[in-house]
């Protein structure tokens, strides 16, 4: 009952802020913009043609920055496109003709070299060796897998000195996962845009992933959390005001409970406002596209975790200073400092970095980062959730092939949890011993 009362008090305090209504209105507008996006199918042959034309580019993602090489001499021609049947129901069957065999085999060998880790730069020479039928098919299958088309049947048909024709059957998890298959309409059809940037065609799922990454990392992850820190910064200082805290401390409730309840109130506020933004945009984007990326919804958890870290720093600041302004500035400052420390540490330990950090400094920065919010770790977790959610089954294999950064779950959760416990513990200790 007491906890409910404290939470209701936090809600009333929040609802009393006029700026909250502005942010809710902006959030609602944002969700409305998401709801205005719809998709319509393109011509199937053109879409598949557009997709296979991108097979000539080999990405090298394990290097920083990622690079790649294009074998432009290969010609790709798609014909006899028809709906799939049997195991490929919901997919497509077609003929794929590949011309300029020499260039094609160079492409296959280069791709194989990257896969095997023998090639680490786009200027590396093409490895020597033969490319047989199995090698050609493996390459094509790999290219389809890169586009998250996990089910393929590829048989080589007609073959000549300079041309190969393959009978191909593909089935993605859904048509929305095939690149170039749809165009998007924005603002309820006010203008349309074929999904893709320059030559790079996008599937609806990929487009959604890009949008959701931006939403999660920048809109909710930066602007949303910043708003959350600002709106909740006054919760604890207001409670600690002279004349206000006296009435509360005279009640039969422990100081630690009082502080933690106010903290929880702020956290729930963050969860609700984040939930409205992420949940609302997830729902309308999914309904309009047919792509239900649970990873985007799961990223709400990492956002709340990060907000919890910042808000615990805000709570400690509030107890020490009783100042709303300080409770805004210190968490945001710690956020910026944590970001800066991580950036310097990561950049300074990379081989191609413009500066190199001595190991002692790097160790010191690593130690320091344990006392600061680790925004970059949270971003990595977000990316992992969303990419995994976007790709669906078989994701571990694909993420391994694509060289995505590994998520140090235990370290992230441990460091964030330890920071929350330490700051709240210290705040509670100070609050319990202080005279008011």
């Amino acid at each position, binding site marked *: *009952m*007491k906890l*409910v*009362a*404290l939470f*209701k*008090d936090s809600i*009333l*305090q929040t*609802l*009393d802020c006029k700026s909250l209504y502005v942010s809710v209105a902006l959030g609602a507008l944002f969700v409305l913009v998401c709801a205005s996006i719809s998709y319509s199918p393109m011509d199937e042959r053109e879409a598949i043609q557009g997709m296979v034309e991108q097979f000539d580019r080999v990405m090298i993602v394990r290097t920083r920055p990622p690079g790649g090489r294009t074998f432009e001499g290969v010609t790709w021609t798609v014909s006899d496109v028809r709906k799939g049947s049997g195991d490929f129901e919901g997919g497509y069957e077609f003929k794929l003709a590949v011309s300029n065999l020499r260039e094609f085999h160079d492409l296959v060998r280069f791709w194989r070299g990257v896969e095997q880790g023998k090639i680490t730069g786009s200027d590396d020479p093409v490895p020597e060796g033969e490319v047989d039928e199995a090698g050609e098919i493996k390459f094509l299958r790999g290219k389809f897998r890169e586009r998250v088309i996990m089910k393929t049947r590829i048989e080589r048909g007609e073959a000549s000195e300079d041309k190969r024709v393959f009978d191909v059957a593909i089935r993605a998890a859904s048509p929305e996962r095939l690149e170039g298959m749809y165009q998007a309409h924005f603002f309820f059809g006010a203008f349309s845009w074929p999904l893709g940037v320059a030559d790079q065609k996008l599937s609806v799922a990929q487009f959604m992933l890009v949008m959701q990454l931006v939403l999660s990392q920048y809109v909710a992850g930066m602007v949303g959390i910043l708003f959350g820190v600002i709106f909740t910064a006054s919760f604890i200082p*207001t409670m600690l*005001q*002279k*004349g*206000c*805290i*006296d*009435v*509360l*401390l*005279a*009640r*039969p*409730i*422990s100081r630690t409970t009082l502080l933690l309840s106010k903290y929880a109130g702020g956290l729930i506020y963050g969860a609700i406002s984040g939930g409205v933004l992420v949940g609302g945009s997830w729902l309308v984007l999914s309904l309009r596209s047919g792509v239900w990326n649970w990873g985007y919804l799961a990223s709400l958890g990492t956002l709340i975790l990060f907000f919890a870290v910042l808000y615990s720093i805000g709570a400690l600041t509030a107890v020490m200073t009783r100042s709303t302004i300080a409770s805004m500035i210190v968490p945001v400052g710690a956020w910026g400092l944590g970001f800066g420390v991580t950036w310097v540490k990561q950049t300074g330990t990379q081989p191609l970095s413009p500066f190199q950090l001595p190991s002692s400094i790097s160790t010191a920065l690593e130690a320091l980062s344990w006392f600061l919010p680790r925004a970059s770790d949270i971003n990595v977790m977000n990316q992992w959730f969303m990419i995994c959610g976007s790709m669906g089954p078989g994701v571990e294999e694909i993420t391994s092939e694509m060289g995505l950064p590994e998520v140090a779950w235990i370290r992230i959760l441990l460091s964030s949890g330890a920071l929350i416990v330490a700051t709240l513990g210290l705040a509670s200790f100070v609050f319990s*011993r202080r*005279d*008011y």
Partner: protein
Amino acid sequence: MPVIELRSLVKHYRNVHALQGVSITVEKGEIYSLLGKNGAGKTTIVKILLSIVRATSGEAILLGRPAGHVESRRKVGYLPEDHRFPDYHTGWSALDYYAALSGVSGAERRSRIPEMLRLVGIEESGRRKIRTYSKGMKQRLGLAQAMIHEPDVLFLDEPTDGVDPVGRKQIRDVLVHLKSQGKTIFLNSHLLSEVELISDRVGILELGKLRREGTVAEMTVEKDIYELRLEGAFDALMPEIARRVRGVRRIAGGVEVDVENAEKLNALVDYLRANRVALVGMTRKRQSLEDVFIQEVGVAGQGA
């Protein structure tokens, strides 16, 4: 068993000695008022009893338990001086909030809140935001929140501060009503005339020390000063009267005399009657509480 018991209470704030060995006992059903200038230590005593402030040394017992015990605080209501209720609350929601924190069930809250708002005279403003309240209305709300959970002991720090005379009378009536229900009231107030009207016992605190303590009657009586109402030609006797007492002052219809003891008083009366001056009335003089207070703490810093 006393409701409040302070034994040699000491509180130091860095270099400030706020309390220097204060001992007070308040029995159940009493209205005890603590008087003192600003900074005398009155609020510190209340805050120690409620564990808002920790004592440096000494003992503070509230309802039989060490000060600050959760069970004791459950039965205590507190109206601090210069209180500030979150202004995003309405009067109703603030009472609901504080009552819930005191463990009052939802059903009880629904019945008690309108009752309390009515008791303190702000029932028509209950649904308005506190930020629209006048100072007097906030004070009334403060009193309501202190009583909302029906506590056994009330600590009231300047309860009538900012309240108009009619409101002050209403608050006084509420306190007297609470006393009649057996509640114990610990009052800090600057309004000595009001304290005098409702208090059973009074303590005067000066620079962290309890200078004087007693019932209002004990405090206000001025020993050995009597007003004598006389008939007859007593002006001519004034030199002799002055010789027989420590002090004498002519007042309308008689004299005011300061005598050493009852024997000397009787001797003076005999002398007057022997000189054909009739004694038609005699009153032992009383002081106002304000007189006593100023006498005890001096006139410097009359904020008290």
